[in-house]
């Protein structure tokens, strides 16, 4: 291990400049913790300072590997840094009043303890990683999910989470606790990614080799995040190895990919990381099973990061993705629509630790672009393009009793749509929108398991003359073996994704600002959770949630076949309960997730008063999957790792028709020999039917081989092992049924050097 200690005499005046920092008679220790072999920052490392009486002051590193321990009286302390799988660093520190000590630590892997420690560490971490709607997902979590590739994927992991509903294995449409895909905010290194999932829903746009961690905020997120009313997927890439060059390559009938990383220059201050993936479904998997899979995608990611000086860290990230394909099957009644989309994002992030202030400052700038194109059967094309420039500053003040985070942001967004006329009442248009605002988010930490985090966000749209005030609250209370969590908050979404959810296979989305004068979508989140450890290595987490949504944009209910061209405003409410049971033993890992959810939308449409008996009607939307179960068992057997995943989802609603006829407008002398009229769907209430349940068994068997210059991992897997004909969607206009992918065997290889 290595230690770098830098001491700065603080100026009392500066320390007192901020309320709550009047602790000039105290000292502060802060720094970054990295892994010695790679230079990667380590998250969740325990940093403790112990005084002569044995009192412990401590904290854990954040996702940047940064820690702060403040409010320390002058004196001599024992300084200890420990993390599962790494040799503990121990030292002594003598602290003087009014001093900030910068202590950077590099930890060394302790191989002989690793196996045993991993079990222990995961037991500690799993409960802590789930707090009031927020779960931290790491690559190891994704790797446990059996899939066609050696490396796990974020999309596969999310699809087994109890509150997440995936509409089929194509289209990349993820619904989080009742929220629609366009209500989810996806970030990678702070850059917005408008469509974070590939067209084959086993894959996200983020290659697993480049991910460090993903925070999924399924609801109740704090005031750092805004502009979406459902959830936040906050993904962070890892840093490249700044000690040596490394690379890997992998392949399967689904995807081939590679990644490289290594130091930049000779000073070990900078590193790079690059990854690329390309689907080979048409050449690979579809040949295996004689089943056409007309989907293709790729993603490229690159990052350069390093230390600019003792108190500065900078990183540059870039992502580009591309997807195309036809969703559904050609059943002879017309080919499915061709959809294409792309994401491009570049960003820079600068972390700065002022030498004399107990502050961590983060500055970010990013540009994101998203294009979306739909070509339907009659060759007409709809296009939508969205651009976003984002500037933000996030400042964290560290005081003995609380961390106060605040931030400023300013954004410029451009929307260009060529929709071939009206689409959901939105016309083809070019529009520019500006956003600016700030947030304040203090975090009161009482002890390791108890905190309270109120926050407030002011989100202003100068170009629209609108501003929203969003109070939020998060908290956790540890009482003996019991842990209670809770969150609440108000959320608005000025930028809306316009689509037609009547057709589950329709993934075309046009982004636009809410029309002036119309209410913007707004949501209230309430979350209450309970966690505790049970005997026999079982942990239990239960979380109940509520989302009340106003001003939803819903497709109008009309008997005219095909896409509706008008939207109506409605409201929605979501109730749910997520339940998890985790089992961890040295050689066996497993869990059972159960999700209970009910989603109901209500809309008012005067035309329906005669047919329904009331102009106001409510319905379960297509993503209201009432029950979800996923069961995973992973075991080490004969030097191999075997994983079995079974998923069950109760049937989703769909709209059953009473039949199909035609319509003539009888407004006078109608010559029935000359007037052709139009076809009509005689529908009953929206989404009045239920599709068959969904269930699937996936299995994988994996073995690693260590060679002189490389480590090779071989994986055999089967997706949909008993070849269940799970329905993807049913088009009530054409009665076209499309099923999800059948049984697909796969052989995956990965070589790392």
């Amino acid at each position: 291990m290595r230690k770098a200690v830098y001491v700065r005499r603080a100026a009392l005046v500066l320390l007192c400049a901020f309320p709550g920092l009047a602790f000039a008679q105290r000292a502060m220790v802060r720094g970054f913790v990295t892994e010695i072999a790679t230079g990667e920052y380590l998250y969740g490392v325990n940093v403790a300072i112990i005084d002569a009486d044995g009192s412990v002051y401590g904290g854990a590193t954040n996702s940047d590997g940064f820690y702060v321990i403040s409010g320390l009286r002058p004196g001599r302390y024992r300084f200890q840094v420990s993390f599962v799988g790494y040799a503990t660093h121990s030292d002594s520190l003598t602290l003087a009043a009014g001093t900030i000590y910068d202590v950077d630590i590099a930890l060394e892997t302790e191989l002989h303890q690793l196996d045993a420690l991993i079990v222990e560490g995961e037991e500690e971490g799993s409960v802590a990683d789930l707090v009031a709607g927020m779960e931290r997902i790491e690559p190891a979590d994704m790797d446990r999910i059996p899939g066609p590739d050696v490396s796990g994927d974020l999309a596969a992991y999310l699809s087994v989470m109890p509150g997440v509903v995936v509409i089929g294995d194509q289209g990349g449409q993820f619904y989080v606790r009742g929220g629609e895909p366009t209500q989810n905010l996806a970030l990678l290194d702070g850059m917005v990614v408008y469509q974070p999932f590939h067209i084959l829903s086993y894959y996200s746009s983020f290659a697993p080799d480049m991910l460090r961690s993903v925070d999924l905020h399924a609801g109740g997120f704090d005031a750092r995040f805004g502009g979406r009313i459902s959830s936040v997927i906050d993904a962070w890439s890892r840093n490249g190895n700044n000690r040596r060059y490394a690379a890997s390559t992998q392949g399967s009938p689904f995807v081939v990919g590679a990644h490289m990383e290594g130091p930049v220059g000779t000073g070990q201050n900078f590193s790079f990381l690059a990854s690329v993936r390309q689907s080979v479904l048409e050449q690979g998997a579809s040949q295996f099973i004689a089943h056409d899979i007309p989907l293709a995608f790729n993603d490229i990611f690159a990052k350069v990061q390093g230390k600019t000086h003792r108190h500065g860290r900078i990183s540059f990230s870039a992502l580009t993705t591309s997807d195309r394909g036809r969703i559904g099957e050609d059943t002879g009644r017309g080919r499915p629509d061709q959809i294409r989309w792309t994401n491009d994002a570049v960003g820079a992030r600068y972390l700065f630790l002022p030498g004399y202030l107990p502050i961590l400052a983060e500055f970010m700038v990013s540009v994101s672009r998203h294009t979306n194109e739909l070509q339907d059967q009659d060759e007409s094309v709809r296009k939508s393009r969205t651009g976003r420039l984002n500037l933000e500053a996030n400042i964290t003040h560290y005081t003995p009793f609380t961390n106060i985070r605040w931030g400023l942001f300013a954004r410029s967004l451009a929307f260009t749509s060529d929709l071939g006329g009206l689409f959901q009442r939105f016309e083809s248009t070019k529009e520019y929108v500006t956003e600016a605002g700030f947030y304040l988010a203090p975090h009161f930490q009482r002890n390791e398991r108890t905190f309270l985090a109120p926050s407030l966000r002011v989100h202003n749209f100068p170009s629209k003359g609108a501003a929203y005030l969003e109070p939020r609250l998060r908290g956790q209370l540890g009482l003996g073996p019991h842990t209670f969590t809770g969150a609440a908050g108000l959320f608005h979404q000025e930028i809306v994704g316009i689509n037609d959810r009547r057709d589950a296979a329709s993934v075309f989305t046009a982004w636009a600002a809410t029309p002036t004068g119309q209410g913007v979508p707004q949501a209230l989140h309430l979350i209450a959770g309970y966690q505790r450890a049970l005997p026999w290595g079982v942990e239990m987490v239960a979380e109940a949630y509520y989302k009340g949504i106003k001003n939803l944009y819903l497709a109008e209910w009309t008997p005219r076949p095909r896409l509706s061209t008008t939207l109506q405003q409605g409201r929605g409410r979501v109730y749910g309960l997520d339940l998890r049971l985790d089992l961890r033993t040295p050689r066996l890992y497993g869990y059972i997730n159960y999700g209970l959810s009910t989603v109901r939308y209500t809309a008012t449409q005067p035309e329906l008063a005669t047919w329904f008996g009331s102009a106001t009607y409510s319905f379960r939307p297509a993503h209201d999957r009432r029950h979800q179960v996923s069961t995973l068992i992973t075991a080490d057997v004969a030097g191999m790792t075997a994983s079995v995943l079974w998923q069950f989802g109760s049937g989703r609603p769909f709209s059953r028709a009473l039949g199909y006829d035609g319509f003539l407008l009888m407004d006078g002398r109608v010559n029935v020999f000359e007037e052709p009229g139009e076809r009509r769907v005689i529908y009953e209430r929206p989404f009045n039917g239920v599709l068959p349940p969904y269930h699937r068994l996936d299995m994988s068997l994996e073995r690693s081989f260590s060679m002189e210059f490389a480590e090779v991992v071989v994986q055999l897997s089967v997706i949909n092992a008993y070849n269940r004909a799970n329905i993807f969607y049913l088009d009530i206009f054409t009665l076209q049924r499309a099923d999800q992918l059948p049984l697909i065997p796969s052989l995956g290889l990965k070589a790392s050097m």
Partner: protein
Amino acid sequence: MVRLGMAIILSGVLLGCTDSVDPVIDSGRAYTLYGFLDAHADTQAVRVFAIEGTLDLIRPAPLGAEAISTELESGTQHQWQETIVEFTNGRFGHVYWATFRSAYGKTYRLEMTRSDDVQSSVEVTVPPVVDPILLDPSLGIGYAIIPVLWQHAPRVHDIRVSYETNMGTYDFEYPLDQEVRSDGVVVVIRFSRDAREIFRDLHRARRPVADLRLHEVRLTVLISSSAWVPPNGIYDPDLLIEPGVFSNVVNGFGFVGAGYDTLMAFDPADSVKIAAGIPVGDN
């Protein structure tokens, strides 16, 4: 817990073994009908859509329904024939027709019976004979309206006003504004407003208004059955396309009305013409 997991998997597979789905609920309804019985026509016809289980384009094949109309008072029946029509847009449709003239004031029931004996039917009463009465006009400076009472008419549709002049015929289509009274329906001719339109037309054609002479006003309406009234009095296609809205077909959908065209022609008094600014006297 492993046993619990296995039990869940087994029960889930057993519970979820079905993978079939029935996308259409059989409503038991047979046909959707549109048209009207025309008391002035020798052939009656209605458009028929079978209520089907798919949205496929209508095929040029017979529906095979048995269609019989009955005049309820006398019991007189007519068998209707099926014709497949190809429209100008290339689509096909089914029209059922019968050769007879519906009688004023009589009620007819049209029954369409499918091969499985499921039946849709509609009852329609043909309007009685009406007497148009010219009511006193309302006059002012540059203002003239002429109310016409269609005595005993339940409703009217397709209101058209034609002005026969020495410079040509001017036609106006009127909205369905009408006052329904116990003794009939009043339709108001916006005489001065129409006159201003005629003057504008003459100005555009650089023809002198002073030379205009009005010979006759012709008011044509479709006298309609009492049920022929759209919700809110407006023919809004987005509303009327909703199933069950504006429908009088039993065990089916659609609307079948009854009616006939009628005409009233008159030469307005000079005072009415003068009020509307139309020149009078010899040219």
